[in-house]
């Protein structure tokens, strides 16, 4: 989370002195400009390029490493004595999804708290901007909702590659590259498509996992 939260502040969408500056630069270098920026404008810039850069590594690394270790060391066989393969797949995939979504939600809450403390509710431009505020909040909530499904897709990709390659470095690098190629087009892709793709990848992972574990 210590890496994800600073990445929320790195988008450069605010124009000062003819330059695009990020929220982090405003806080440290242009602090005199803070009263002119409403907090919703900063919150809307949460999902910056740097966030998409670190997101797959941070969100997937912990669970990928543990999962691959359990497959390589055949630790799952102790689990299979008590339960079946379906249950093992279900518990590991839920662990992947829940840990990534929890990380996103907690870091978002901390980010919003920081921004609410630092930036004012309304910008110094006052009532002129009030009419836009409610639509901006709705847009942000929709963006966050969409981002949850995108993270779900990335988690499904990481799970799939974990089962295929069983090598933590290869998996993390492949997930990073897939995310790097996809994130620019993410906004144009619907939630339904993201969900269906994630489900298909999880299903394929399940079939491959059975084959891999039975062959070991």
């Amino acid at each position, binding site marked *: 989370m210590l890496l994800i939260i600073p990445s929320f502040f790195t988008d450069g969408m605010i124009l000062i002195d003819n*330059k695009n500056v990020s929220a982090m630069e405003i806080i440290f270098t242009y602090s005199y400009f803070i009263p002119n920026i409403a907090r919703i404008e900063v919150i809307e810039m949460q999902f910056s390029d740097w966030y998409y850069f670190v997101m797959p590594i941070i969100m997937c690394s912990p669970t990928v490493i543990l999962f691959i270790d359990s497959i390589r060391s055949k630790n799952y066989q102790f689990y299979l004595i008590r339960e079946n393969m379906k249950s093992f797949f279900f518990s590991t995939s839920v662990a992947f999804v829940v840990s990534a979504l929890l990380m996103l939600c907690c870091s978002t809450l901390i980010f919003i708290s920081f921004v609410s403390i630092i930036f004012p509710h309304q910008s110094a431009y006052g009532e002129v901007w009030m009419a836009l505020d409610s639509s901006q909040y709705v847009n942000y909530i929709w963006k966050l909702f969409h981002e949850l499904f995108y993270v779900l897709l990335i988690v499904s990709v990481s799970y799939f590659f974990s089962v295929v390659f069983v090598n933590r470095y290869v998996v993390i690098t492949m997930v990073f590259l897939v995310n790097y190629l996809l994130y620019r087009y993410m906004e144009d892709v619907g939630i339904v498509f993201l969900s269906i793709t994630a489900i298909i990848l999880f299903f394929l992972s399940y079939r491959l996992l059975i084959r891999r574990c039975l062959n070991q």
Partner: protein
Amino acid sequence: MKIALRYLLSEYKRWLMQSKNITLLIGIVLVRKVVIVPLLDAAKSMNTPLQIWETSIAVGNSGLVLLLLPVFFIVLISDFPFLDSNLYFVLPRIGRKRWCVAQILFVYVSALSYVVFIIFTTFIQTAFESYVFDGWSLVVTDYEDQFRIRTLIPLNLYNQMSPVKAFLWTFLLLFLFTSLSASVILLGSSYGKKKLAVGAWIITIMLGMATTSLKITVQWIFPSSHAILWIHYDCYFRAVRFPVACSALILLFLSILFNILSYRKMKRIDYSSLGEGEMI
């Protein structure tokens, strides 16, 4: 010496073939995002080519890239020296001293390979849109700050030296700093404190970068500050804040000192106590 070189070659091949090296792709993407894409966009907007070494110079002088590249290198050589069960068969055959010499040579060979790889990947991404003449391009010397190129190749560089000279010094400093990182790991490993050495070194790098960005005199205490070329010079005057040759000598001296200390320790050590397993 021949035996040590042969052993070095086998270890080097093993290092090249390890699966960790795939993480270099992340480093390449990072360098492309921070350095290459802004330079290429600026060149396209201005409709002028870049000088062939400018991207490599920008890579070696970017604070953010110099913060992350050594970390990537440390991840790649985190298993160094390779202390597996083979060691008990290798040591009686080649001898302790030759084994130590091979490890010290591996420090420099791995650092050189890494730096050459980074420079090569930046080079091939911009080579087809560059010229060879030894003079700074308009993209770098444009006085308007609109492309933020000054954060990549500042006035301190292009007002003081030609691109080829800047590239050679950048390459040398980067190589010496990377080999110093490997020497620190070797020293930590020889005293059985590899994780502590790596942690302390990463903190030293971060503090060095932080003091460099704040532009305070204490920055010269940290080796990472000596690895950045542009901070050695003033913006406009022909004034040197700290001689570059001295920085190169300091980095080389520290690297040799750590290697000598490692050699002296490793000659006497019980190797069964060294194995720390895979770090990262």
